């Protein structure tokens, strides 16, 4: 068997993805003494984390000393409508402050409070000001800080050994197309260098997936070209499982005009800092959309909501700061009922709420973005905004403490992992998630490698040859009419947007699944023209395989879950069903077919349950579950 893979590298830990989670995992693995490689689809430092705007949620209590991990945990569970893996939410809430403080020792410069601590801002669903931030470019600060920490570690290695890349090397503009296994355990990964098109094999007993999300399967999205669900698909094909794939977060505020920028994110900080949503009748419509489960925490009148910004002790927060799923659905309804803005969104206004200089200071990149791309001065006029596909709550099923997937040697952290956010993620909980579970993934992978002793799973040459054939398929002769990858991608995005979007109906999801069958057949005929060196058409042809698989998972789970919860809204099954509160839909691939089954959500420990009052729990859990809880208590 002959293979053409000329480059072969061997590492202890291979991290796929160079956003916040991947870089934090790599730092940890290297500090654990592992020889570590990081794979980045883009240039080093360009990953999608850079787009995060608002901040990293961590209960440091710098602005309101009443904050604690318990309150953060509670907010996270409420935001996820109690479908979260409670252990993940607990670890996240407990460890986020340390992870943020640690960034300062790497050189990060967050905005400060008057007494010199890290400042924290309000955000949807968070009871207290909790988001560490740098204006509205927190993600950039985070990625640069982690990037610079990696450079710093490389400088240490250079001083000590003469080779900066001895223990930690970044392979950028490199795409992994297949994971390789030895008897069911991870043995390595296969991919190509984008610039030359050359193939590369990484032999590694531990692989950390940190590939981010799936947004590029949807037409209107805030996500970049990289977000093609690579990690989700790699895990599935390697025998791993996905959970919660029906939960896709549509961020309530994306730009809607002009068409070329449709979907680009408008940070939630606009609302956290005082911005309000209005419809074409100038009404602050969010007051009409406060659901029963949140009535106790949100203001009934505009006057009370406005007072909250200066006196949060004695007033309830404005409903513009409800969790994202609620706000996105409300905007969707307003537009549908004819009260939208001229370009099919609603108005987000901060100009009448804050002085121009404060807006420019607190929201500099929003000011810049609207001025340059839409000719809108946000200090003088409202923005037009509407929902945009932003984040997938679903992902690889992992162990909370070690981030280990169901496949020995495979780990996942960040957006590609499932469970942490339940059915809906709170803003600000992603940047902290990356740090907390990125570090744990690095640790988990290192522990696993140590547990192997000197043993190393081997890569089979036959698997390598098969991976090469798959990667070269778009250059072969198709059976039938060749397909243009860009055209098929555009059709897929339209289908997912229209049929498995923010509001779902059974018939439409079924139609989507039938359409996906046809796309799968067409995908086999997708062809690339030109050579292998930096050929985006070829790259897209290969990414399509992942997008189609992941889209199918989203659609299948969306059909299965006959209720509405968080990022999954079924028009034919409105309202939450306590039965489904306890169920995760688990997806796997068997013999090339996607299968799904139901599995109980991990139970919450009694000490965590005790953080909620019974009336609140009663709104979420089944009567039997509640009776069991009450029974335990009386015993």
């Amino acid at each position, binding site marked *: 068997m002959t293979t053409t893979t000329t480059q072969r590298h061997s590492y202890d830990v291979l991290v796929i993805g160079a956003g916040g989670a991947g870089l934090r995992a790599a730092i940890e693995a290297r500090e654990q003494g592992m020889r570590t490689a990081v794979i980045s689809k883009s240039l080093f*430092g360009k990953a999608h984390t850079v787009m995060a705007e608002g901040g990293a949620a961590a209960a440091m209590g710098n602005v309101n000393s009443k904050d604690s991990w318990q309150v953060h945990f509670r907010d996270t569970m409420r935001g996820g409508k109690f479908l979260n893996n409670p252990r993940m939410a607990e670890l996240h809430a407990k460890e986020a402050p340390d992870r943020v403080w640690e960034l300062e020792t790497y050189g990060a*410069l*967050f905005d400060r409070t008057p007494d010199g601590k890290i400042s924290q801002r309000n955000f949807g669903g968070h009871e207290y000001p909790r988001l560490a931030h740098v204006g509205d470019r927190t993600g950039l600060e985070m990625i640069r800080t982690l990037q610079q920490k990696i450079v710093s570690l*490389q400088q240490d290695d250079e001083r000590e050994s003469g080779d900066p890349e001895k223990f930690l090397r970044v392979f950028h503009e490199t795409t992994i197309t297949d994971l390789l296994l030895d008897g069911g355990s991870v043995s390595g990964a296969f991919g190509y260098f984008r610039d030359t098109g050359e193939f590369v094999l990484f032999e590694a007993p531990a692989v950390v997936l940190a590939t981010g999300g799936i947004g590029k399967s949807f037409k209107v999205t805030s996500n970049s070209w990289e977000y093609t669900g690579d990690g989700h698909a790699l895990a599935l094909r390697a025998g791993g499982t996905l959970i919660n794939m029906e939960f896709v977060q549509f961020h309530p505020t994306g730009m809607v005009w002009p068409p070329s920028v449709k979907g680009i994110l408008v940070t939630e900080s606009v609302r956290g800092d005082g911005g309000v949503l209005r419809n074409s009748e100038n009404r602050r419509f969010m007051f009409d959309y406060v659901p029963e489960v949140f009535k106790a925490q949100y203001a009934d009148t505009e006057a009370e909501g406005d007072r909250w910004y200066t006196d949060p002790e004695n007033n309830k927060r404005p409903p513009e700061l409800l969790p994202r799923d609620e706000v996105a659905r409300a905007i969707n309804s307003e537009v549908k009922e004819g009260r939208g803005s001229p370009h099919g969104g609603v108005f987000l206004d901060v100009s009448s709420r804050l002085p121009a200089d404060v807006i420019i200071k607190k929201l500099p990149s929003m000011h810049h973005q609207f001025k340059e*791309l839409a000719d809108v001065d946000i200090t003088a006029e409202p923005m037009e905004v509407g929902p945009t596909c932003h984040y997938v709550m679903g992902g690889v099923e992992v162990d909370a403490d070690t981030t280990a997937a169901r496949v020995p040697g495979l780990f996942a952290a960040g957006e590609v992992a499932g469970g942490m956010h339940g059915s809906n993620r709170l803003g600000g909980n992603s940047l902290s998630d990356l740090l907390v579970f990125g570090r744990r993934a690095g640790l988990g992978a290192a522990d696993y490698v140590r547990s192997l002793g000197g043993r190393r799973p081997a890569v089979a040459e036959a698997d390598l040859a098969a991976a090469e054939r798959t990667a070269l398929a778009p250059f072969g002769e198709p059976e039938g009419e060749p397909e243009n990858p860009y055209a098929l991608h555009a059709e897929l995005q339209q289908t997912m947007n229209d049929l498995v979007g923010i509001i779902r109906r059974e018939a439409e999801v079924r139609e989507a699944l039938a359409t996906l069958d046809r796309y799968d057949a067409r995908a086999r005929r997708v062809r690339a023209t030109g050579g292998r060196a930096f050929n*985006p058409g070829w790259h897209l042809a290969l990414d399509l395989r992942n997008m189609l698989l992941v889209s199918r998972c989203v659609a299948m789970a969306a059909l299965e879950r006959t209720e509405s919860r968080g990022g999954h809204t079924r028009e034919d099954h409105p309202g939450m069903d306590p039965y489904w509160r306890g169920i995760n839909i688990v997806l796997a691939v068997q013999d090339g077919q996607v299968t799904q089954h139901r599995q109980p959500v991990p139970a919450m420990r009694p000490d965590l349950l005790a953080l909620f009052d019974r009336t609140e729990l009663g709104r979420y859990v089944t009567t039997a579950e509640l009776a069991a809880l009450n029974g335990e208590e009386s015993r």
Partner: protein
Amino acid sequence: MSYQARFRIWRGDADSGGMADFEVEVNEGEVVLDIIHRLQATQASDLAVRWNCKAGKCGSCSAEVNGMPRLMCMTRMNTFTEQETIIVTPLRGFPVIRDLVTDVSFNYAKAREIPSFAPPKDVPAGEYRMQQTDVERSQEFRKCIECYLCQNTCHVVRDHEENKKAFAGPRYLMRIAELDMHPLDARDRKRDAQTSHGLGFCNITKCCTEVCPEHIKITDNALIPMKERVVDRVYDPLVWLGSKIRRRA
């Protein structure tokens, strides 16, 4: 609203290449990157270009548009007339890989030459205290999205390959200034800036500032103050004498 625009785009690789002409549809509100994407989808599926966020935040889609170093995602089509031919070429300061994609490894090599943040000894994580006014100076430089337009434009290296070895370029001289102005950085960076990273090459023509898409005042706020600090440290006779005496003691 839409019209057919004329584009001339450099296509080729390190060995050979030339300008290719295209006629392509343009719609209201579009930017140059939208047009490049349309060409990929309809006429040239292997047209190589880097991009990520499409919102001016990641600094990937740098190119030269009608000779001006720009981010393609922030260059709106309505800044051109419908009649003119728009010329898009790769960054001139770096070797071409393919089409609009250049080899920017120079920048990563330089990044690794700059000594990293040195955390203060005896200040544990969580105990860092800094005032907003003090962090703001460095924060301005941390807005940098590493699009390398300044590195591409700076005349010290734009047409002078021979200077690349000794000159870190505006982005990384600014990085030194950023660390030097960090309220808690524990390292002295002034002498290094001059002797190891080529601050003296900069003769403050401000080309870097002019092309910065983040509107960072690279020259005024980073490079000139850094030069002043270096002068104080390296050339002030009293400081010089003091350092000699202290070293002896």
